[in-house]
């Protein structure tokens, strides 16, 4: 149990103890007190005191790595850029107003807004995470041997004020007013008083915790969910703290909200960087996601979802790979491989502005703690979601298929009738990737909305004179129209029945649709098809089509036509047998059954 006096003491220190530039204040062995309770009571007391302390906002910057020897950045508010030359072996991180990087066994801290070097020090291992409270930068690194954790606290002069080493995996830390918050072993967070050099509170979580971070003036712990450090922190051990999770929905390649804070990352972006979720937890009030939206990036596509319903809200198609992002109040800042940061309006997905690092980047990080970027009045209104999806489906890049297949399913589920037209255009436009075609076809076949669009498409036949060489997706239209029981489509289907350009497989589906939809006006076409083609039943699809047509004719009172064909010596024997069965077994309810 921690005493209130001790907690107060830990916060009362205006400055941390300076212990020297190398190894000062080092805590060896068990960094975390074995006697410490993890029930959250101490952490709640700490929070009660801590609540009055403002959490400084971090700098609004984007930082990238260019080549293996340059860290580059831009102040996204005013566009000022900087470059810092130093070997880069590990991915740099933005920690409040500081950028921390490392290379060739040396760690460096830079002013995030200017790129000015604040300090350097010898260090091994790559950075797991870092934080800065305006006075001290705390850096969590993975030891060279890959096990345990090393945390160093460095002041503005480059002096190490505390170093913690432990056998436990320590994740990305946060520091506020001289108190370190260290997530460890994936389920604990310890508050560590820098001045005292000891753990002063601990809480365990039911969810996985590898990150501590400050956003919007609040402190959070989490990885796939985030728990705010507020008065409910005492309930964390029973899973009832102020925790927010993103909706459980399938997104291509299932990116987590954040990747493990125990891992370290190379200064080159990987597939995992291009496939990620971006969301900002509410810093006050009921637990939630700022703006009610979160974004999933996948290659060159960004998709916004409702944080409550998980419904797709908008889709942004990008001209280069999205490698990093950050949410801000009212929008999302996405950094691409060209070093351009694009600001997207959270509500509509429209582009609110750009900021450029100035060079292509191998890796990027964005911080938008205090950033805001309202839409300008001149920004055009967003196109409908169906068109946004169509734009994303037109993108061509490696690994696009997963997200495009996902978007096709989204398109198919839209209530918007015109989404049907979009699906038809994708199939008739001859620009859709071949690998994606089966998905688009299945999506169209499943549609029950937008019937007028289907009929319009079905009316298009190849026309040599008019130069019409495209054909509608006849099979899928027939399936969809039959599924919707759209009798108005029957005359159009009948035209396909008699069009020699119709493939056998299409015939099979057209005839199946007509079996349900044909009315008295289609009897002539049905009869013609059966009469003219009954001797052409060698192919199973055509035979099936003939049987479907026979059933439709009987339903429409034309049983004698079917009987005549079923006994025609020129009708192939298998078809004759099937037609005889149809004649014998199909009831004749009349056209009214249509």
């Amino acid at each position, binding site marked *: 149990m921690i005493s209130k006096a001790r907690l107060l003491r830990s916060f009362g220190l205006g400055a941390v103890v300076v212990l020297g530039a190398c190894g000062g204040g080092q805590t060896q062995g068990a960094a975390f007190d074995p006697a410490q309770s993890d029930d959250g009571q101490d952490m709640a007391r700490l929070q009660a005191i801590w609540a009055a302390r403002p959490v400084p906002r971090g700098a609004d910057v984007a930082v990238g790595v260019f080549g293996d020897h340059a860290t580059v950045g831009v102040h996204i508010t005013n566009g000022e850029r900087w470059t810092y030359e130093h070997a880069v072996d590990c991915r740099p991180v933005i920690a409040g107003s500081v950028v921390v990087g490392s290379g060739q066994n040396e760690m460096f801290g830079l002013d995030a807004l200017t790129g000015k070097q604040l300090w350097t020090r010898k260090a091994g291992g790559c950075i797991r995470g870092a934080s800065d409270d305006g006075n001290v930068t705390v850096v969590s690194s993975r030891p060279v041997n890959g096990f345990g954790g090393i945390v160093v606290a460095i002041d503005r002069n480059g002096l190490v004020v505390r170093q913690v080493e432990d056998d436990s995996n320590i994740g990305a830390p946060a520091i506020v007013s001289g108190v370190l918050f260290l997530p460890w072993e994936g389920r604990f967070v310890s508050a560590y008083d820098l001045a005292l050099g000891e753990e002063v509170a601990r809480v365990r979580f039911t969810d996985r915790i590898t990150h501590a971070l400050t956003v919007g003036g609040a402190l959070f712990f989490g990885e796939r969910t985030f728990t705010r450090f507020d008065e409910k922190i005492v309930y964390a051990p029973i899973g009832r703290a102020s925790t927010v999770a993103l909706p459980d929905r399938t997104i291509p390649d299932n990116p987590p909200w954040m990747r493990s804070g125990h891992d370290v990352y190379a200064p080159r972006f990987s597939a995992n960087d291009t496939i990620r979720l971006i969301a900002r937890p509410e810093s006050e009030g009921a637990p939630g996601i700022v703006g009610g939206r979160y974004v999933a990036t996948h290659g060159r596509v960004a998709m916004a979802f409702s944080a409550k319903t998980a419904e797709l809200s908008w889709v942004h198609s990008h001209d280069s790979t999205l490698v990093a992002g950050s949410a801000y109040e009212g929008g999302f800042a996405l950094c691409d491989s060209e070093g351009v940061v694009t600001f997207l309006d959270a509500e509509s997905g429209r582009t609110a502005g750009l900021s450029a690092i100035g060079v292509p980047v191998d890796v990027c990080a964005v911080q938008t703690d205090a950033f805001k970027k309202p839409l300008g009045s001149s920004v055009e209104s967003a196109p409908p979601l169906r068109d946004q999806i169509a734009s994303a489906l037109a993108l061509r890049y490696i690994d696009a298929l997963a997200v495009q297949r996902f978007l096709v399913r989204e398109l198919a589920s839209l209530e918007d009738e015109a989404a049907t037209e979009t699906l038809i255009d994708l199939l008739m436009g001859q620009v859709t990737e071949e690998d994606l075609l089966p998905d688009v076809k299945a999506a169209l076949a499943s549609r029950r909305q937008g019937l007028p669009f289907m009929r319009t498409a079905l009316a298009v036949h190849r026309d040599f004179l008019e130069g019409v060489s495209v054909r509608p997706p006849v099979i899928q239209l027939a399936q969809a129209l039959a599924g919707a029981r759209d009798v108005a489509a029957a005359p159009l289907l009948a035209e396909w029945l008699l069009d020699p350009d119709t493939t056998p497989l299409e015939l099979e589906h057209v005839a199946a649709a007509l079996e349900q939809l044909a009315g008295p006006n289609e009897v002539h076409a049905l009869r013609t098809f059966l009469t003219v083609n009954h001797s052409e039943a060698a192919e199973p699809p055509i035979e099936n089509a003939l049987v479907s047509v026979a059933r439709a004719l009987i339903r429409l009172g034309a049983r004698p036509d079917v009987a005549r064909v079923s006994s025609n*010596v020129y009708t192939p024997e298998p078809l004759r047998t099937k037609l005889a069965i149809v004649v014998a077994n199909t009831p004749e309810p009349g056209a009214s059954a249509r």
Partner: protein
Amino acid sequence: MCTVLLVVDFLKPTRPQLALPVVAALLVCTGQARADSAAVRSSKPTAAVVHPEDFGDPAKVESALLAAAQLGNKAKPFAPAIEDLLSVGLPAHLAVSALTALSAIGSPSSSKVAAVYLSHRRSAVRVAAAKTLGATGGENAVQALGRALRSNDAEVRLAAAQSLGSVGNAQSVSDLAKAFDRGVHTAALSIARLCDDTNCDEIITRTARLSVEAQRECFVALLARKTPLGDPSFSRVATAAKTAGITFTNSELKALFGKLKLSDVAKAKIQLLVSDQVKK
């Protein structure tokens, strides 16, 4: 002297398994009867008989249809029987034979069933149907051939373009011109036959794209139409022929005049207009 008897019969429905149209084609010639197929195809057809019980024998049915085709319009009384046969449905090769027979007979009443066969799955059948419509004419012919001209099947388009030249009208010219522009050059001759003073330029301006022989054929068709063009059109045709370097020998002109039985006035016009192009 030959006559052909083509009989279509429907057996009583008490025997539904045989309730088929039965065709008997009886070709009777006054000369020596020879039933071999070579004779059927010869210029002097002999007899071919299909008994009702042989309807299921495609070889015998085909022989009868070939015989009817050889008789041409003399088999006109039997056109309805062949039409009925097609209305019931035949295998592709027999459908072609039936359509060919109807084509040879040339009865306008056949156009309805021939038009239906433009929707057959087999290209050969559709081509035969298009050719038949060109021979029969009839109320459905022009419309059906107009649709066939839009077909995705080049053979069908070709046949339709040619047939329209026989049974089409001036309204067919615009579609034929489109077909020509898309490579159906046989449409040129049809346009030449169908165009009137308002749209013969459709072909005059296109002849340069044709081979010399095809150009010559077009100009002949334009100059020797059954319904002669008016003088302005005549002049344009003659000028175009001259520009194209098309020449006519006297014997060609003579043959042209004789073949088409033109009026003296028309002959004089043609002679006058192309006189400086005539090879002496």
